[in-house]
């Protein structure tokens, strides 16, 4: 095992026993990034100097005996998290030179515990996409198969874990943007309940859906990371003030009597046979562990994608208005007037997918269309939430595939936005319902592309999905498989 292969808890043990220093671990990680990222392109910015300084500081903390589980752990962040003094682009040309004056709360919480930032990760521009191909910094490639997409929008966050370029990463999930790339890259990805983690300092895409979460090598690491970033933030009115449990206490390896729901709407014809097979195997595994299965229905599932693309784009059209070239970000050099400055700065700064969503959202909110689109979508959203709440009256967690197919090839769906949008069909409803979900490795396709299993929990039911995901992980070996890189 190389240092860059270790999980948080494994590296922590070695740091604690002083078998290795934080500086050594960071050097190993930086060398690994150097050696592999030319092929993967998981990083937009690598921060070796800052990382080594932070690692040296972590070593001093360790020497003083002030060690936290994250002290000295090399982490990387999706480039949507504001990092003070470190360029934050959101993978957009419009922010290509933006150096934030403040830190995102979630990053600050990791930093205060002594985590070491090795760099900022590639993604779809403004988190709009399912393949990380819309980045202004070139597409990220899937470490399992460099011809394939890593998923998105947090493609860099998952690819960096699969390529062993960071011990843990943070991503954001608006319609599946953590879980889908985690599934495609064979890692664990957790999308917490809306309000569980602060959004302060995270560049907004769709404010009522965006949520911060970890991508990690195993479920224990996901529990550790979630525990570190979760909790009320006075700077985010939508963050919920409720105690943060020790999520590692849920790693009991016991799912006897756990009631798992299987929604008929998710096991559809057209599901990739390898994915179907992985799900069947997973169900058998759980049965063997003593869990019980219940057939359930989430009847409004069919409307989720349409509903999502109205609400998310509406919010995005407003959230992205601030990129106007006035105070920060890209501005044309030779504006002839105010309107020209607005139009050309935005035309040059935003990529085509971002423009498409701004236009869709602007349209959905326009006078005369608001009731038919935005308001109707909000009503549908309430129905989808109701589906989940009703299901959770009879089951503890819901099991579904994360995606209908394993990772597709780069370029395959770029020309067909609707096909691209449908790749999030199983993850979007969780965001609309505001509840939590986790993706765990559950197999490989015949040609070696990872397949993910999704467990959806009750609102603030992270402990239950962590328990269920952990038991599955312990009973299987998928998480131990490494991308051939």
């Amino acid at each position, binding site marked *: 095992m190389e240092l860059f292969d270790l999980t948080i808890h494994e590296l922590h043990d070695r740091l604690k026993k002083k078998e290795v220093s934080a500086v050594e671990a960071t050097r190993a990680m930086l060398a690994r990034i150097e050696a592999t990222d030319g092929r993967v392109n998981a990083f937009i910015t690598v921060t070796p100097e800052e990382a080594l300084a932070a690692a040296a500081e972590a070593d001093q903390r360790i020497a003083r005996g002030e060690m936290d589980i994250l002290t000295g752990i090399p982490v990387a962040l999706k480039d949507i*998290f*504001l990092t003070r003094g470190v360029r*934050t682009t*959101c993978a957009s040309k419009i*922010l290509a030179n*933006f150096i*934030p*004056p*403040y830190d*995102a709360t979630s990053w600050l919480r990791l930093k205060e515990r002594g985590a070491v930032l090795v760099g900022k990760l590639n993604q779809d521009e403004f988190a709009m996409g399912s393949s990380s191909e819309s980045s202004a910094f070139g597409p990220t490639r899937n470490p399992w198969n460099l011809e394939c997409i890593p998923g998105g929008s947090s493609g860099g966050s998952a690819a960096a874990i699969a390529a062993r370029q960071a011990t843990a990463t943070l991503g954001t999930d608006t319609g599946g943007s953590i879980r889908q790339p985690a599934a495609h890259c064979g890692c664990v990805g957790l999308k917490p309940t809306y309000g569980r983690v602060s*959004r*302060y*300092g*995270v*560049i*907004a895409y*769709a*404010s*009522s859906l965006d949520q911060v979460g970890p991508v990690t090598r195993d479920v224990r690491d996901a529990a550790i990371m979630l525990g570190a970033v979760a909790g009320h933030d*006075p*700077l*985010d*009115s*939508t963050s919920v003030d409720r105690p943060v449990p020790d999520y590692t206490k849920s790693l009991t390896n016991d799912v006897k009597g756990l009631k798992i729901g299987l929604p008929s709407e998710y096991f559809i014809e057209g599901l990739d046979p390898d994915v179907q097979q992985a799900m069947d195997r997973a169900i058998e595994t759980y049965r063997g562990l003593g869990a019980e299965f219940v057939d359930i229905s989430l009847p409004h599932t069919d409307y989720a994608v349409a509903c999502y693309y109205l609400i998310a784009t*509406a*919010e995005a*059209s*407003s959230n*992205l*208005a*601030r990129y*106007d070239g*006035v*105070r*920060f970000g890209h501005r044309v050099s030779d504006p002839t007037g*105010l309107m020209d400055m*607005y139009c050309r700065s935005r035309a040059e700064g935003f990529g085509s997918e971002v423009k498409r969503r701004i236009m869709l959202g*602007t349209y959905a*909110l*326009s*006078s005369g269309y*608001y009731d038919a689109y*935005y308001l109707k979508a909000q009503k549908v959203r309430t129905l989808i939430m109701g589906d989940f709440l009703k299901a959770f009256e009879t089951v503890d967690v819901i099991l579904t595939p994360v995606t209908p197919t394993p990772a597709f090839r780069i370029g395959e769906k770029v020309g067909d936005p609707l096909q691209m949008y449908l790749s999030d069909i199983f993850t979007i409803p969780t965001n609309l319902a505001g509840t939590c979900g986790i993706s765990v490795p559950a197999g490989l396709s015949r040609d070696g592309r990872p397949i993910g299993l999704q467990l959806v929990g009750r609102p603030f039911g992270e402990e239950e999905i962590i328990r269920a995901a952990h038991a599955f992980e312990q009973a299987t070996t998928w998480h131990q498989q490494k991308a051939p890189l």
Partner: protein
Amino acid sequence: MKYQPVIGLEVHVQLATDTKIFCGCSTKFGASPNSQTCPVCLGLPGALPVLNKKVVEYAIKAGLATDCAIAPRSVFARKNYFYPDLPKGYQISQYELPICEHGHLDIEVDGVGKRIGITRIHMEEDAGKLVHADTPGTGDDSGVDLNRACTPLLEIVSEPDLRSADEAVAYLKKLHQIVVYLGITDGNMEEGSFRCDANVSVMPVGSDTFGTRAEIKNVNSFKFVKQAIEYEIERQIELIEEGGKVVQETRLFDPNNGETRSMRGKEEAHDYRYFPDPDLVPLVISDDWVEDTRLGLPELPAVKLARYQDELGLPLYDAEVLTATRELAEYYEACLAAGAPAKLAANWVMGEVTRGLNDAGLAITACPVAPGQLASLIALIDKGTISNKIAKTVFDEMWQNGGEPAEIVEKKGLVQVSDTGEIEKIIDEIMAANMGQVEEYRGGKEKVFGFFVGQVMRASKGKANPAVVNDLLVAKLKR
């Protein structure tokens, strides 16, 4: 044909909170550009608004003072438009569910009372300020100062119940008085703390269908409001008389020529694409919060006005003058609390005190004579220790150099002389020296009586009790 104007007003009140509505930055006026900003009010990526509780409290106060219903649940919404002084590309306001609704305000014009409906009151953030290239020190570029961005505003919207410019001004003055009384704004109109948009239309008298309205933007003095509305009414009537049609548009008032001119028409009107702001949770206000706020309300001007007349027995004029501002009323009430009789205190506050303040250009809160001192002075008059005239001298001394009235009276020997023996002595001397005038008086020329009073008062250096002087003079001259 006769025309009936119809007017509705939208008033923006800048709230006097220490910090902004959605961040902790100071709201102080006049700081150097962009020195009072943070990621939130600059609209930086990732920044999120957090509602200032004080703003809600002030909004509840305004709602209660205008008899509005306070919504147990209200929602902030985004008003989307692009402008360089608007950092986020949207203004956070309230739209479908405002905090206050269905209130009213009673006004009076030429002795006729009228109730004006208040449609709604909502909270919102202000925008920043543009500094254009022609301003000294800016060079060729226009600048943006975001110190004002995110300062809290209340928008108070009236029903179209006003029928003349005078009614509109009466409504505005009343509203201004109330919000200043509540202590929720400094009410400074020049600095824009209280500004108004007027919706004006005209219809034939007797009609019940409103005409097409024009909105006049951002008028910031009572005088200008009157001018703007009167001009606009006349303009619309002339237009209709000439066979034209009023178009729905936004107009600007030009104080230099007293006219309004078109700013943008209906076709250029923005589609603001309002929708609930997902960054802010719905605002829930408990009954307890409303009731606690109600208990903390100051006595409002209308109630005070009635009480001054009914309980203190003051005439309407006095009551109106003394309740005009909360500060003046507080000064007056402090005099009463220190024991001064109501009418005497009213005369002094409206007389000497107001005159002194006007001459010195001071606000009542900076009055050099404290209410307790004024009450002591009034007590000296009331007891007959000094005359009203001497009291004015003492008051001047207090105003100039400070000091307690009793001490000044003592030190300067200004105690009133009521001793008949002493006064008789003076009268005798004066009569002896002016026998000619004594004869004139006794011959029926009673006018010279004033001459004797003046002489006696002068001889006593003003200290003789005028009433005693009168009585004795009459007795001695008639003899």
